[in-house]
């Protein structure tokens, strides 16, 4: 602010606390200085917005990959399931597994996917697995109905009500 001031020129401005007119040795009104500093701050963040923008060459949906990990993976399974109702779910363990479950539900809606094996039909979702059902299943009643590939399976639970 110092570079903008001049002892020779004065202008009237107001102190925010007292609201009484005071005379400050300023070439620019305080309002202008405040507005300019404010704008500078805005432009700095605009630079961040532009800098952080994804590259135009980036493939659409390449980060979360919702379309790839959800709709495309479950397309064949979805066609084999009933149009509505509730189905069970069996997935991997670990931090990322919850996201996989959400993506399965998103793909299979309006079918409700309950995170439990206590249903007549149970969706198996093992995106890390290269082939087939896991060796150890949580229930003896689970029987593989169909392997749709890419870690997507359908089980029948003989013990479910």
């Amino acid at each position, binding site marked *: 602010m110092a570079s903008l001031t001049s002892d020779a020129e004065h202008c009237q401005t107001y102190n*925010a606390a007292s609201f009484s007119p005071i005379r400050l040795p300023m070439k620019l009104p305080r309002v202008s200085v405040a507005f300019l500093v404010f704008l500078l701050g*805005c432009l700095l*963040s605009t630079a*961040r*917005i*532009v800098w952080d923008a994804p590259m*135009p060459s980036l493939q*659409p*949906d390449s980060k979360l990959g919702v379309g790839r990990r959800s709709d495309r993976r479950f397309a064949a399974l979805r066609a084999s399931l009933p149009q509505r109702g509730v189905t069970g779910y069996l997935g991997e363990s670990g931090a990322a597994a919850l996201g996989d479950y*959400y993506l399965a539900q998103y793909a299979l809606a309006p079918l409700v996917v309950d995170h439990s094996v206590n249903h007549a039909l149970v969706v198996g979702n093992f995106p890390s697995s290269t082939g087939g059902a896991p060796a150890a299943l949580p229930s003896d009643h689970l029987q593989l109905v169909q392997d749709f590939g890419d870690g997507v399976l359908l089980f029948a639970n003989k013990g479910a009500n």
Partner: protein
Amino acid sequence: MGLILPAVVCFALGFLLVSLGWSRQGSLLPDLLLRASLAVGYGLGVFSVTFFLARVCRVGNLMLVDLLVLGLLTAALLLAARASRAAPGLTGSETRSHTSPAWLQRVLTGAFVIALCGALYSGLLRLRAYPHGDGWDAFAIWNLHARFLFRGGPHWRDGFTALIPWSHPDYPLLLPATIAHFWTYLGRDDPRVPASIGFCFTFATVGVLYSALSILRGRARAMLGASALLATPSFIEQGVWQYADIPLSFFYLATIVLLCLHDEGTWDASSQPTAGLLALGGVAAGFAAWTKNEGVLFLGAIIFARQVISIRDARRASPQRPKIAFTRHSGLLLAGSAPVFLLVIYFKHWIAPPGDLFSDPSSMLHKVLNLTRYGAIINWYVKDFFRFGHWLLIPGSLLLAGVYFVAGIEDRDAARPGFRTSVLALVLTLAGYFAVYLITPYDIYWHLRFSLGRLFLQLWPATVFLSFLRVRGFDRRFAEKA
């Protein structure tokens, strides 16, 4: 047909609704921009309501419903136009001088254009790169609900079940129902629809802020306010990533803008106050409640604040501070919000399972009495005051506070009731958020970490608007000197 037809119908619905309540007679361009910006949000809101009602009433032909609503709104507008010929509407306060030096106008315009281009560039690239958003909220909550509404057909209620509590089936349906409405026109669940809606809400909020400040305080402060919003990285990111906090911030801002416009017009022109702007403000508050649960809190806060200011001003009425029929005004706000709020009640009571917030009432009292929780929340409130928005180097909140104190504020005694009502409503809303953190069933630190910044963002556009409404600008004396 693509997206064009539903987009035109949606905008027309919003524009007709806004025009129906419009009782100002101001200069053409800022008024038109404000009405058009408001129309975006109102149109999307009406789209959600008509879709939801069509689903509830099992009406299959949505285009017919839209045409019916369009016809009704047009007829109401024609009737209102005939009636308004006899009674003059509110005169806006934009006739006051808001001159700023020419060089400053050029600098402000240049900076505003840079901020706008930067935000549009970034927003469009993000829209293209992340059509499903860049977080879980978009597809795991809003778009999932939209799929249940769209794909479920007559069984759309299936999705609002306690079996999938993580999808927050108790969340209101403004966004999901709007998305489903567009999908119904398209005949498929195209991910570009929710992404475009997020984009529209983001930039319509900027439009409302710019045009309202332009009307009330001139172009200089309008460009400053709009630049602040355009330069808030989180605002642009989360808007395009389809977080519902940005549409919510649109409706908070719309409510407050309409309240302030009404009161400023009433105060300055001493003309007959008309119901339209307040009722429109009420509709916006209702849409806020229909967007997110926090909106219900805001709706209560704004009506309560209006009553409190009413009582206070009634006691201090003087020639400089005229007494206005505030009780009637609160009633108009309430009347405007009532139809949509009744829809929220219907949804919460008859369709959605109970929310998770009050899932453990036995521990609430214990939490309220735990002083450590107060300390933790205050600590995060202070930290996020500086952090939210993800600004580069200088936090936006600090910049705003700086400009407020350095430039000074306009004559304090003339703080209009609309301004004071809005400030009180935002403070009450913020206090309400505090109370929610106090009783949250989740780990408090986790909850604060992942939501407080977004809650601040909800209030940010309205805060910027109110700040620049009061920040001192230039009068002719300064312009001539400079």
